[in-house]
């Protein structure tokens, strides 16, 4: 089990705070959207970066980030550690 950073792509507008706060994990793609550096769409958050990741989740203007505990083998999230309220977000 490890903590992962999950991105709600329907909310994300590439505001760009997250890759400033977590440069070790994220960079910006051609259009300003967060790009995981290791190719994993929901990158694992190592303990030293935990606080920065929580800051990114809090600061995201679009509430598009969540920290989830997920088993390493699959992508299925088991328990939400910290998130914005889950809604069927509509425009």
């Amino acid at each position, binding site marked *: 089990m490890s903590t992962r950073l999950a991105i709600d*792509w*329907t909310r994300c507008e590439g505001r760009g705070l997250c890759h400033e706060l977590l440069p070790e994990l994220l960079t910006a*793609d*051609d259009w300003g*959207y967060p790009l995981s550096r290791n190719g994993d769409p929901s990158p694992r958050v190592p303990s030293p970066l935990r606080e920065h990741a929580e800051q990114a989740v809090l600061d995201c203007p679009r509430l598009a980030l969540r920290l989830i505990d997920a088993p390493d083998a699959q992508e299925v999230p088991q328990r939400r550690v910290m998130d914005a309220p889950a809604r069927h*977000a509509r425009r």
Partner: protein
Amino acid sequence: MTTTEMATAMRLSGAAAGSYRAHLDQLGPLPDVPAHRLIAMTADAGLTGRGGAAFPTGRKLASVSEHGRAVVVANGAEGEPASSKDRALLGQAPHLVLDGLALAARAVGATSAYLYAPADLLDGKVRTALKERRDAVRVRTVASADTFISGQESAVVSAINGYEALPASQPPPVYQRGVGGRPTLVQNVETLAHLALLARYGVDWFRQVGSHEEPGTRLVTVSGAVRSPGVYEIPGGTALGDLVDHAGGGAEPLQALLIGGYHGGWVPWSDRMAALPHARAALGPYDASPGAGVVIALGASHCGLQAGADIAAYLAGQSARQCGPCLNGLPAVAGHLTDLAAGRAGSRTVHELERIVGLVEGRGACNHPDGTARLVRSTMRAFAAEVDLHLAGRCSVGPLRPRGGRR
């Protein structure tokens, strides 16, 4: 395929009857199989979803039934342009689909049921069929939009919830939280039709036709460079050559088959390929799968790269425009592929194309960017020789006009 094989494959097609009365006369009443038995039968029969993802239906029924207060949805949206099987099924055998829906509702303990399909189908045969029935769970109809992604699972749920038919971010998955926040089963109409027959005639009957890996029959829409394009019912695992013959054979020498629709993969045509079964394992190396049964034949008179570019451009326009990588990346990919097809691209374009294809994969709320990436990669791989020709300013089919449009 032999004549006998063709005859035994007429299951869904053979069951097409007009009125509800005729339907019951032919097939008998809805069987009184209890929920847990239905789920077990579906799992044993190896029925998989006919909507594209081919998820084991028994497992899907089981996971929705765990939560209670479930909702079932028959998905007939069929947003894929080259697919017409759901339309044919709903138009010709709506009672088969509605039987399957009723059985699925029983299996998962659902108290609400919906049929999601294009408005013109709902207003016609479906409405007549619904008037004739007295199902335990009343079926409500919801019209689907004519977009490529309108049939995506969470888009279906979104539409039924009263919003636009756009994919939602998961988690939670729809089988946990869907219509009205309730656990929702979304099942393709063909899958439900198979369930209606499976429940009546049993697992052994179901597995009598088809291969071990792809049991039962499936509906395929064969189109493109074939003499008799149409919707056909075939045993699972039919050889591709037999499939093409079923549709009248090639109207011209064939170059490749696009299998699985616009999110599928190209299988280059040859005698060896004609023997390949229409099955997941055999098609896997070509990034293709039986999917929703779409088979498009590409004749030798058409440029494969141009075909891929045209499809990529269509897919780019069908983005839900919710997610940045898809909204921005797909038009960029389509643009590069179009340039390559027109002969105005260099090796840098190819490099850029591959880079952006890698950028869009996995970064979105649904599989639209991934499917488009798959199609583009498959195009580049299947028509690799064509790529080299185009980079040199030539094409196997005819002259290139780099500054003009070309089909």
